[in-house]
């Protein structure tokens, strides 16, 4: 979950009459987790579905509602204007077809505000922008731009001075030499043309979704902002714009509209939407008995507007709350406005009879039997490595199932056998007292339509007198007492076991596993200094009964 750093004193200024403690106590009830605190600074984790909480402005709006200081919808006041046209050329339609934007005027921007806006931009890029693929934002100094703007495409040898640079460079160079160019360049594909926003003097304003031009850099001297959002989907671009517009308005800017035309683009509406929900659904889901007026006041505390007619609640939702899909989302908003801390947990008697799965019951009984036989239970990961599963044990690795891009070398392959892991355990415990006797039951995986999962059972015994007779006796007794079945053993050879001390485990004429003395070379591979005997059998098909 994304993290944002805020200052209590700034929040206090934004919210109004409120103490630091009240803020700290209320944050979790907005769904925000306090990650750490250091005097005035507080680091907060917020959910990716609420990008408005990426700034203190957004969090202040939420807290005002929750604390009852200001409730109801945050209405966007956008003055209609024709002074800021953007004309879209059809050439962008195959690359990044949509652009939208807004103008924000007469705001005060200090260093902290710039930092907040940049965090918001990055989080929006990552979250709803899906790493700038779906949509991306450029924030500019309005006074450095001459309208109308053109959103069009240009050759890759087009040059301009990008943000944080002093010299003019070509787009090919931006893409091959800068970090943002390398990270986001692939979004533009292979085409020779790339999107560009030019002003009326042919001056480059932005090269979306990669980088802005240096000339429009926002500084603490900036008074008026121009925000553009480009993307591959009109709704996503406008969702993103609605968050930025709401935050800028809360930061004290006056909004004016940008007039967009051409190639299926149009001026954004940033409209509120209305959703109806019945108070009975709300009460049923929350387990409460709230009156319609309590419901509407709760929704207002969640910074929505609501009115009731009979049992039907009509809720008005601002554009930036695109996380609200339907009635259940409103149930949650009521719960938040009502206060989770005010919901008293209840328990209704169970009308169902619980039961453990028969497979679990049988496995537990096998565990108990093995413990009676003096074996300690081990637990190993299902994800193992080629080294442990095949190289050390001399096993056939032709049918391995591996995972992609594991961050851990020891966890790359799904185990097809339990025994190698147990040998690895012995290897790590050579300094501990012998005898060492361990067992494990667990899932093993096989390549089959597309992957089969079976439960195997394996045991090992390591000490100076370990021998075949001992381990056969153990397995035989475990299965006899655990499941009432009798097994036989038939001579075979297997690369993991010593010739002449290895057998297949046979039940009703079918082979269910293997048993024997581990080959001395394998024992050496694991640096174990005593003889080891062991077995592994499949429980799934032959022994376990499921309902």
């Amino acid at each position, binding site marked *: 979950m994304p993290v944002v750093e805020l200052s209590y004193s700034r929040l206090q200024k934004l919210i109004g009459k409120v103490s630091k403690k009240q803020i700290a106590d209320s944050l*979790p*009830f907005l*769904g925000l987790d306090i990650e750490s605190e250091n005097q005035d600074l507080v680091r907060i984790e917020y*959910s990716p579905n*609420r990008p408005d909480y990426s700034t203190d402005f957004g969090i202040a709006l939420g807290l005002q509602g929750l604390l009852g200081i200001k409730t109801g919808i945050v209405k966007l006041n956008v003055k209609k204007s024709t002074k800021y046209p953007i004309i879209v050329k059809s050439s962008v339609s195959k690359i990044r077809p949509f652009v939208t934007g807004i103008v924000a005027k007469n705001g005060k921007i200090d260093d902290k505000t710039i930092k907040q806006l940049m965090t918001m931009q990055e989080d929006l890029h990552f*979250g709803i922008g*899906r790493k700038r693929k779906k949509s991306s934002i450029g924030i500019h100094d309005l006074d450095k731009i001459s309208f109308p703007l053109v959103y069009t495409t240009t050759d890759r040898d087009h040059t301009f001075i990008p943000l944080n640079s002093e010299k003019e460079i070509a787009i090919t160079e931006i893409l091959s030499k800068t970090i943002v160019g390398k990270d986001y360049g692939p979004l533009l594909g292979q085409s020779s043309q790339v999107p560009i926003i030019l002003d009326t003097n042919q001056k480059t304003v932005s090269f979306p979704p990669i980088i802005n031009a240096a000339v429009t850099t926002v500084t603490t001297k900036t008074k008026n902002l121009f925000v553009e959002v480009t993307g591959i989907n009109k*709704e996503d671009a406008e969702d993103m714009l609605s968050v930025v517009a709401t935050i800028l308005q809360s930061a004290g800017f006056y909004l004016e509209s940008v007039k967009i035309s051409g190639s299926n683009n149009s001026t954004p509406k940033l409209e509120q939407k209305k959703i109806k929900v019945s108070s009975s659904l709300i009460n*049923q*889901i*929350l*387990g409460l008995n709230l009156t319609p007026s309590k419901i509407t006041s709760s929704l207002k505390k969640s910074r929505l507007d609501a009115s009731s007619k009979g049992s039907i609640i009509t809720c008005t939702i601002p554009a930036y709350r695109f996380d609200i*899909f*339907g009635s*259940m989302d409103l149930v*949650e908003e009521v*719960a*938040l406005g009502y206060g*989770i801390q005010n*919901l008293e*947990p*209840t*328990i209704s008697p*169970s*009308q*169902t*009879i*619980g039961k*453990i*799965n028969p*497979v*679990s019951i049988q496995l537990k009984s096998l*565990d108990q039997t093995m*413990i009676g036989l*003096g074996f*300690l239970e*081990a637990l*190993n*990961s299902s*994800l193992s490595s080629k080294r442990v599963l095949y190289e050390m044990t001399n096993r056939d690795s032709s049918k391995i*199932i*591996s*995972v*992609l*891009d*594991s*961050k851990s070398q*020891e*966890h790359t392959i799904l185990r097809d056998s339990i025994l190698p892991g147990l040998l690895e355990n012995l290897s*790590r*415990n050579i300094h*501990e*007292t012998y005898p*060492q*006797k*361990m067992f494990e039951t667990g*899932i093993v995986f096989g*390549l089959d339509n*597309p*992957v089969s999962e079976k439960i195997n059972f394996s045991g090992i015994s390591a000490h100076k007198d370990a021998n075949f007779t001992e381990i056969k006796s153990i397995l035989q007794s475990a299965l006899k007492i655990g499941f009432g079945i009798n097994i036989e053993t038939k001579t075979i050879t297997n690369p993991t076991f010593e010739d002449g001390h290895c057998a297949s485990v046979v039940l009703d004429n079918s082979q269910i596993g293997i048993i024997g003395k581990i080959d001395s070379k394998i024992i050496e591979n694991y640096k174990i200094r005593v003889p080891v005997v062991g077995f592994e059998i499949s429980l799934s098909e032959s022994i376990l009964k499921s309902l």
Partner: protein
Amino acid sequence: MSQVFHEIEKKIILSLRDNPKQSPETLEKSTQLSPDQIRRGIEWLRLKDLAIVTESKSSIIRLGKNGIESFQKGLPERRLLNLLKTGPKKLSDLQKELGFVFGPSMGLARKNNWVEASSDQISIKNIPSELPGEKTIKLIGENKISKDKIDIDDLTTLLKRPDFIIEDIITSKEISLSDSSKSIKLTESSGEIDVEAKVPETFVARTHPLKDTIDEIREIFVTLGFSEILGNMTQSSFWNFDALFTPQDHPARELQDTFYLDKINAKKIGTAEQIRKVSESHKKNWRYQWDISEAKKMVLRTHTTCVTIKHLAENKPDEARFFSLGRVFRNEKVSYKHLVEFNQIEGVVVGKDASLRNLMGIQREFYKRIGITKIKFWPTFFPYTEPSLQTMVYNEKLGKWIELFGMGIFRPEVTKPLGITKPVLAWGGGIERIAMLKYDLDDVREFYNNNLGWLRSTTKCQ
């Protein structure tokens, strides 16, 4: 202090009274006990402060490979001088005769002025009767000898030469009686033993501590009226993600967070209707081109919720309580708090009890039964539940609130496409977290290390 002595102890004490300082080896001879009995007896007496064990280190010298050869054939330079006894010889003949020791021996002989060379003839100049090192070689012979019995100057000339001399440090023990043991009366044995003595540890065979917690949680769920369902660890992305309303371009679905199986795709992911309705829900709400090939990618389940939702979609119960418990996977860096594979418990309630307060009530009851009473609920976000909450439990040791289970009510966007009409309360969380609290561990990796020291010593949690 008990004054009951084992026969072994008595024999050792008696022997030491006769002969006050002895090595374990001499004690073996004087008492007729085995080395193991002597070792144990000395240890018992030492623990009772009745015997004193002093250790001393001494250096023992023996010949190495080249030393032995020199013992048998003479030092290389002696062999050179012997060859020259019969008169001057050609350098090349000497070289042939002595092989690779010619060089060093010739060097030594010239340096010490034993030989002289004119053109390529080598002749004897003056031979000492005993060459440096010869005395030591003879003395050691093929035996070991203590370093302090050797002429150090003579030894030093050999120590510099490769593989002539090997030095071993030997620790020897000397056992003597302490003052307090001198007054002890040794009575005839009447069969009594020292019941206060320390005894060796017996290692208990047991179920794995984590398994004990898993079993305990399973029992609690059953007593709360829940039935257990099982499901596969390998799942199609369809059930792990799509069916749970996680869009196909969601960051959680990326390779760096989720384990995808290499080159393996699901053959059948669901019924035609399930696929159609789920894809419609995605297209309508998330506005993107849903791709079936993405849904067919096989993953290691990232939660047990995929098992739950599949079961719900297949059975569509109006009223039910069930739980699913098992391993889940995250492609993370392994650390003291993260494993790539851990256990998760998940429970659901379907039906008329399905209210948020009721969900909170079941949680409170569950925690009470595992011994956690200080809890609170905070709102949170999960892609597939609405409303969503998380439980915070107070950890006395850390002195802070920590997050435990997540919970919520399945979104209609999840349930409707799969034909589930009743509200479904769901919650779940990692079992290792609870087990860590119970076993007072700060490193979650301990559960899967199978470190016998820990497994054999940890107290069972009830």
